[in-house]
């Protein structure tokens, strides 16, 4: 076991960042996830695609512990997300779709408290928060509340919050939805840099070019079932991702 910068225990021999086996999840009588099984390798850049309502966000919520599930097993770097949830959660950073920030806190306070929940002392947290705010060009807004930010700035703040504890895997739920081109390229570049540094990236997006450009492996979910998964070449087979996507999700 080797601690990362913030003392997170990591088993270096674990090759699977995410391992999901036979996951089934219902909302009432609606089966949102139907016997889903797949793995994401350590250091991978994984695109998780699917039409609206296919089960992408539900899968993310299960991985991060925001949703209960009826059967199956989910492990993050070997830690079970139900029985070893405090260990597994240390390793995950989530950039959610919605802007769910505490309205009473400034940007800097928000990041420092979030780091604190992950066991990072205030001095280190403050330094890390400033680094991220600088990196995502939010330093000028450091002492403002999130309501003072534009939509693009809030997106960046979501990413800062997800990264504050230096997670081993970063999960992004449509991070560039509604972003202008400049921000989109900035996010892409930063995600690629993080991936080169060894971070596992789990990305959901509706932009096929984004997935095609950034990712090494691709999984497609449709009506709660995995319908295609593999490395990029294997999934594409000389077609465009858009063509593959439309082909496997054609059943309505």
């Amino acid at each position: 076991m080797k601690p990362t910068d913030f003392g997170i225990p990591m088993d270096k021999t674990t090759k699977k960042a995410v391992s999901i086996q036979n996951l089934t999840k219902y909302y009432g009588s609606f089966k949102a996830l139907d016997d889903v099984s797949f793995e994401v390798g350590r250091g991978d850049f994984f695109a998780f695609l699917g039409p609206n309502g296919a089960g992408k966000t539900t899968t993310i919520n299960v991985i991060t512990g925001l949703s209960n599930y009826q059967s199956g097993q989910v492990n993050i770097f070997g830690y079970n997300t139900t029985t070893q949830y405090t260990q597994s959660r240390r390793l995950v950073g989530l950039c959610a779709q919605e802007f769910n920030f505490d309205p009473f806190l400034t940007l800097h306070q928000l990041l420092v408290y979030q780091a604190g929940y992950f066991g990072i002392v205030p001095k280190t947290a403050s330094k890390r928060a400033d680094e991220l705010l600088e990196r995502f060009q939010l330093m000028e807004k450091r002492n403002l509340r999130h309501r003072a930010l534009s939509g693009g700035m809030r997106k960046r703040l979501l990413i800062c919050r997800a990264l504050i504890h230096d997670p081993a895997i970063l999960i992004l739920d449509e991070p560039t939805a509604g972003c202008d081109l400049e921000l989109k390229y900035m996010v892409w570049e930063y995600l690629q840099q993080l991936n080169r540094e060894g971070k596992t990236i789990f990305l959901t997006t509706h932009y096929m070019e984004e997935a095609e450009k950034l990712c090494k492996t691709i999984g497609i979910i449709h009506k709660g079932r995995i319908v295609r998964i593999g490395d990029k070449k294997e999934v594409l087979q000389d077609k465009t991702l858009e063509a593959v996507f439309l082909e496997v999700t054609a059943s309505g």
Partner: protein
Amino acid sequence: MITNPIGVIALSKREIVRFMAVSSQTILPPLVSSALFMYIFGVAIGNRIAFEATGFSYLGFLVPGLMTMHLISSAYENTSSSLFIARWHNHIQEVLLAPLSYFEMVLGLLAGGIARGVMVCAGVYGISFFFSPMGVVHPFLLSYFIINIAVIFSCAGMMGALWAEDFGMLNLWNVYVIIPLVFMGGVFHPMTMLPPLIQTISKFNPMFYLVNGIRYSVIGVTDAPLLSCVVLSLILALGFFFLTVYLFKRGYKLRT
């Protein structure tokens, strides 16, 4: 049992900073209303109440009741509003995603309720010095009751916040259950002033024991057996705490 102390401290600090930032809405109002209660009921009306037989002035009897009443409402309001707003804005996810055990989450949220309750309770006691200075007969026992009562109603506030679907529902428990029980628990009157039937019914009101626990600690007089007050407050505090931890563990209205 606590594996992430920094996380618990961070959450506790956030909860305390939250209510302190709006102290004019969270700390000041109960102090102002207590001062008015003390002046109107304790001084203006209280001097006309034949209370000498108890060995205390009516104001002396009233102060511990007011301390308990505001301790209860402050602890309840703090956690219920904080957790409900966090659910409403969905920034509760910040806590749910963190490597805090459910025990630690509840502990962190509890800190705000306890801190606010203790501050208001101490403030009410402080205000009483302007009307009639009095010492505390059993300070350790007073701390014991204050902490237990703050835990009970901070946890009740969290449960209310989890149960509520809108702001209207959030106040239902407070308005229709807690406040009536507190008023009937002997905040303003000794039980002996009530008809025998009501006295008997009051013995089933848990607030009666909590109010009397605080009153005994401050002025050394109680209508309820002290042992009952000590044991019941501890059982309720532990029961409410672990029930709240269980609800968090189950993800009741927290996880889909």
